[in-house]
């Protein structure tokens, strides 16, 4: 096969092309653009009527959605309980700051661990079911945690949420960096970059390949001696870690966390972000989170009935744009 034939062969894949010859600049371009946009966000956001806090919010939600997409878009598992790990990570972070130590990195670590460990424990139970039933389990678990948080007043502040903590300056040997709005944005971006890099690497690994195989043809995988349940459990746990970290970042964004962060409506929002952006695309969740936050902001400033409009958006996407924005774009590229 000549080099020319290689280059003209479209490669509509979810990861970087596997052939060395195809790793030319064109494949890296979309990624480069995304990073440039993210790195310069505090500069251009005000120009379009936004503000840094909004950008940080997008990143945090995108991170949770990206973790969810491992399950949803790649492994094909209908997880509708991502908010539970997100919210629990947030509460863990808040509690850490309040009771353990005034350290933001520690809060982030504990938030992440909380999400991951709980997912790891619930995983084996959840993965015994598939399809809609798996979705129902994840929803139910999510609600269980919601109720625990709402009712455990003394520890969590109940319905009113948890107050009384705030993000702490980062202490390095040579200096102390206060986490102002912009600085916090870059900290969040850093975490996001690490997560994105790890997820990208994961998707290129045999484990990542196996995730996709589970989605495509679970029965076939059985013949390869790979247990779908184990795979789903691993995906579930990883997505829990990521959601926990996102939640911890979220809690320190407003220095406040409430049970709403665990509610099934937020879980639904995360799923929507993945679908909206494009479930089969690496950057789908980020794009979806961006559109969602913008829509939420715009709509709520124009009308009281923004929830109806949001619901309408869900319906329209399901009926007319199920592949999401990036899915549509990719079809055009292929054709």
């Amino acid at each position, binding site marked *: *096969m000549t080099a020319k*034939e*290689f280059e003209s*062969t479209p*490669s*509509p*894949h979810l990861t970087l*092309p*596997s*052939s060395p010859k*195809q790793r030319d600049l064109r494949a890296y371009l979309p990624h480069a653009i995304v990073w440039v946009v993210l790195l310069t966000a505090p500069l251009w956001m005000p120009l379009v009527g936004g503000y840094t806090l909004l950008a940080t919010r997008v990143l945090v939600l995108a991170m949770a959605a990206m973790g969810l997409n491992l399950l949803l878009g790649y492994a094909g598992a209908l997880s509708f309980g991502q908010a539970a790990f997100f919210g629990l990570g947030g509460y863990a972070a808040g509690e850490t700051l309040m009771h353990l130590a005034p350290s933001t990195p520690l809060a982030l670590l504990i938030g992440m661990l909380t999400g991951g460990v709980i997912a790891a424990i619930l995983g084996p139970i959840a993965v015994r079911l598939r399809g809609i039933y798996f979705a129902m389990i994840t929803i139910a678990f999510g609600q269980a945690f919601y109720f625990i948080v709402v009712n455990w007043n003394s520890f969590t502040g109940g319905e009113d949420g948890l107050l009384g903590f705030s993000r702490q300056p980062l202490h390095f040997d040579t200096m102390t960096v206060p986490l102002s709005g912009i600085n916090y944005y870059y900290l969040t971006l850093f975490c996001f970059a690490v997560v994105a890099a790890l997820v990208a*690497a*994961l998707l290129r*690994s*045999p*484990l*990542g*390949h*196996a995730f*996709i*195989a589970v989605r*495509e*043809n679970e*029965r*076939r995988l*059985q*013949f*390869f*001696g*790979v247990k779908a349940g*184990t*795979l789903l459990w*691993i995906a579930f746990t990883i997505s829990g870690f990521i959601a926990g970290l996102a939640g911890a970042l979220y809690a320190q964004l407003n220095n406040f966390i409430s049970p709403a962060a665990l509610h099934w409506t937020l879980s639904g929002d995360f799923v929507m972000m993945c679908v909206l952006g494009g479930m089969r695309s690496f950057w789908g969740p980020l794009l979806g989170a961006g559109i969602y936050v913008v829509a939420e902001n715009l709509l709520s400033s124009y009308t009281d009935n923004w929830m109806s409009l949001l619901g309408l958006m869900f319906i329209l996407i399901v009926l007319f744009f199920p592949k999401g924005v990036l899915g549509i774009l990719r079809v055009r590229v292929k054709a």
Partner: protein
Amino acid sequence: MSLLNVENVSKKFGQLAALSDIHLKVEKGEIRALLGPNGAGKTTLFNLISGMFAPTTGSIHFNDDEITQQSVEQRVRTGIVRTFQITEIFKELSVYENLRIAVESDMGISLRPWLGSTQKQAVRRRVDELLEATQLASKAYREVGELAHGDQRVVEVAMALAMSPRLLLLDEPTAGMSDHETEHMVQLIRQLHQEFDLTVLFVEHDMHLVFNLAQRITILDNGRWLAEGTPQEIADDERVQAAYLGGSAA
């Protein structure tokens, strides 16, 4: 010692006897065809050999080891690999990606979240070898779902090959194929049989193909063993003619 020894095997589904008293011995390096009218029990026998369920009575030995109760995964590991009547592939992935998954599971690294560069190269090399051997290299990066049916079945064979089979079970490998594709598959099977030192047991309906490819033929009828022999012996066998071929052989 035969590579595969199916002894006295019967399979009942409730009251229905799908197979009764089946004896089958396949020698190492053979290409054996399994024939019979629809409902004769060929797929059931395949399912038994590949481990999808256990026989009601009887035993199955592979390389003198008893495998009657072994699971599918265990049998795959000992080298019994099969393809299906209806293609079971990962449709939205490329040929390369399909083969890669097969290779990675054969290498036992399916669950690794990270591969060193030597291992990555090893995987790549094996996939390339398979692509070469099955003449799929030019289609490596195309989505399998978009390939012609014949090519999809070749991908399936390639995936089976990736599992380092010693006994390859092909369930109607040329079903739904054009003459041209069938010819290609026959050549391919012959080539792979030589190149990889395989033992092949296949189910087919295409007589021409069977007589061209098989070294020996076993015929089943109504869940029972009917006849066995070389293609010529079978063609001359009156019982077979009466029950199955309906006259002279192809």
